[in-house]
């Protein structure tokens, strides 16, 4: 029977020095897939290469042979000595390979559990494989199931719910204070990668006006141009606090830039509309005592890190639920694979036709008067004989001359033609 295999390495098994040597670029894709198609032991193949993993998913009649051909292919294609990366490789077959694919798709195998990019990367890999016709009945089905599992995990568990980066955590907090961030004016004091990233997120969420203040006014002007905002002199900072809602501070100042007394007055002028301070600077820019004022909220870098740690812990808790969903999907997929064998298919077909014939014979008999038992039995016999005759050729075809690579295709076709999977309770057509 055709086996599903997976060979690859990821961030857990291989350091970046090895991963970067083996990574397939977008340009490599087409040629790599064409080469994979020519490997004699490989029926179907799919290549997934991201910064955290290089994996080849394949089907083969001979697992050992298939895996070594894939390994040799990677070495040849990337001009690497297999001995270097072999210790980092994992070879998975059958249920293990299926489970791995589902886990990767559901972002359970990611460096940051729950991050959403991986699903898009897998979809792209699958698109490439179908484009080059390297995936067939089995991998198509497997990938669709993987997408379905990923969707279920995302909607039924909280695995991707909370922010795990400083700037996203800050934005999430802003949402809990303001509800919507749309139209909220933002003041950036100083500069820095994290602070600028947060401003960009806010702009994407359609924040209102952006102000930028910096000790060097030229720097403020440059940043303001980038954010399509307004540059401020450092001295006029306080006057503008009336008009802003979110203050992101990231200066190199040795002392507090904003103090409690100043903000107390500002809040009065603002009629207590809330102010949210995000202090990314070390040493801190925002007097922590401001957090004790009503309607003013201060989060410094450690607070944000604390939030992230909590969120990561939550994700790992949710991952346990996700594993259950994956396990369920593995069983479903196994059932489908087992049904995709010659004998079960013929048995299912025979049962379906026999049931139909019996039902029709009964219907006919109930419409006739005065049929004696022997005649009735003859009609039943005729029904069964018809089924047998009818089944003969398809059964011979399925058992017979099909080459190995086409077997799954023909079995799948037969099952779909006679609608054999709808009442098996697999629920596989629901996606």
């Amino acid at each position, binding site marked *: 029977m055709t086996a599903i295999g997976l060979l690859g390495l990821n961030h857990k098994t291989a350091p970046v020095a090895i991963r970067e040597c083996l990574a397939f670029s977008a340009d490599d894709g087409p040629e790599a897939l064409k080469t994979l198609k020519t490997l004699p032991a490989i029926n179907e193949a799919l290549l997934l290469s991201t910064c955290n993993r290089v994996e080849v998913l394949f089907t083969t009649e001979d697992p050992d042979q298939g895996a070594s051909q894939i390994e040799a292919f990677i070495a040849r294609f990337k001009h690497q000595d297999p001995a270097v990366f072999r210790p980092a490789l994992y070879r998975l077959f059958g249920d293990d390979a299926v489970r791995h694919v589902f886990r990767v798709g559901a972002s359970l195998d990611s460096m940051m559990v729950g991050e959403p990019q991986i699903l898009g990367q897998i979809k792209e890999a699958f698109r490439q494989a179908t484009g080059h016709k390297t995936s067939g009945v089995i991998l198509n089905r497997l990938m669709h199931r993987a997408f379905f599992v990923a969707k279920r995990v995302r909607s039924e568990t909280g695995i991707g719910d909370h922010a795990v980066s400083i700037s996203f955590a800050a934005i999430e907090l802003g949402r*809990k204070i303001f509800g919507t961030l749309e139209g909220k004016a933002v003041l950036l004091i100083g500069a820095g990668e994290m602070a600028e990233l947060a401003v960009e997120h806010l702009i994407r969420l359609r924040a209102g006006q952006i102000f930028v203040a910096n000790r060097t006014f030229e720097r403020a002007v440059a940043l303001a141009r980038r954010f399509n905002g307004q540059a401020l002199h450092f001295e006029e900072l306080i006057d503008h606090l009336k008009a802003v809602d979110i203050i992101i501070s990231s200066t190199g100042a040795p002392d507090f830039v904003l103090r409690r007394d100043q903000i107390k007055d500002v809040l009065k002028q603002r*009629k207590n509309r809330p102010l949210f301070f995000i202090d990314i600077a070390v040493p801190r820019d925002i007097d922590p005592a401001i957090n004790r004022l009503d*309607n003013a909220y201060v989060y410094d870098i450690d607070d944000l890190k604390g939030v992230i740690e909590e969120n990561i812990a939550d994700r790992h808790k949710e991952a346990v639920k996700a594993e259950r969903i994956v396990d369920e999907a593995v069983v479903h997929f196994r059932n489908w694979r087992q049904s995709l064998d010659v004998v079960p298919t013929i048995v299912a077909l025979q049962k379906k036709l026999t049931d139909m014939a019996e039902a029709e014979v009964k219907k006919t008999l109930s419409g006739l008067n005065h049929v004696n038992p022997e005649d009735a039995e003859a009609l039943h016999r005729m029904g069964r004989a018809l089924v047998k005759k009818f089944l003969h050729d398809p059964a011979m075809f399925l058992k017979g001359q099909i080459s190995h690579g086409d077997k799954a295709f023909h079995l799948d076709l037969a099952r779909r033609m006679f609608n054999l999977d709808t009442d098996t309770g697999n629920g596989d057509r629901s996606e």
Partner: protein
Amino acid sequence: MDNLILIPGVFYLASTAGYIGYLFRNRSGFHRAGHLLLWTGFVLHSLVLAAIAVKTARVPAANLHETLSVAGWALAGVFLFFQRRFDVKVLGAYAAPLVTVVVIAALHFPQSQVPLKTAMTSLWLLVHIATVFIGDAAFALAAGLGLLYLAQERAIKGKRHGFFFKRLPSLEQLDNAGYGCIVTGFAFLTFGLITGFVYAQWIWGRFWSWDPKEVWSSITWLLYAALLHQRLAMGWRGRRSAMMAMIGFAVVLFTFLGVNILLKGHHGEFTRW
């Protein structure tokens, strides 16, 4: 009719279970169930009140049993209305239990038909009772929203993002909803007081008789008037507004029950048992 409000009471209880389930499990199915059950309870409750009104041919607020029943009914109705408007889903975990407790309390008091000195058939009276109860119900919700606001503010300021932080909506939304409730409550209370004065003039021949209920209702009114004024003029929002909403509701509770039970006056007979 023997304790017909047991039927809506059962629905309210089930609704409470739904909303509490939503609070803990955070699944929208629980919320939908709670919401639907509360609606059903509210509709049945309306029918029960209407039936009593038809049978006795008077406003069904003549003893403590009926008064509490009307209070629970008004709270359920006002909550369902505000839920549509402000969509603070977890508030159900406050409102539904409150409705249930009030209705269960009502069940504890007999439905004795003591002849009243006061006529209970006037349309004015109906309007008076309805507006006052709707106003009080809105204040009850404002207090609940105030409570939620304080919980959420505590989570954000204290940087402990546990149970409430994840489940409660933003501070802004809670504050807005609370403000909406107070404005509504204030408008209804104002109208309720006016109709009360008119009715008093009609029945007793004077607008104002220093009845404790009148005095405390006016104190309540002044308190909420002050709260609204401070909000508009001085920007009393957020924490202070939330605290005031809770204090205000405590005064409302005293005006509603405490006055009748502890002090005497011409409203006393409506809460006899």
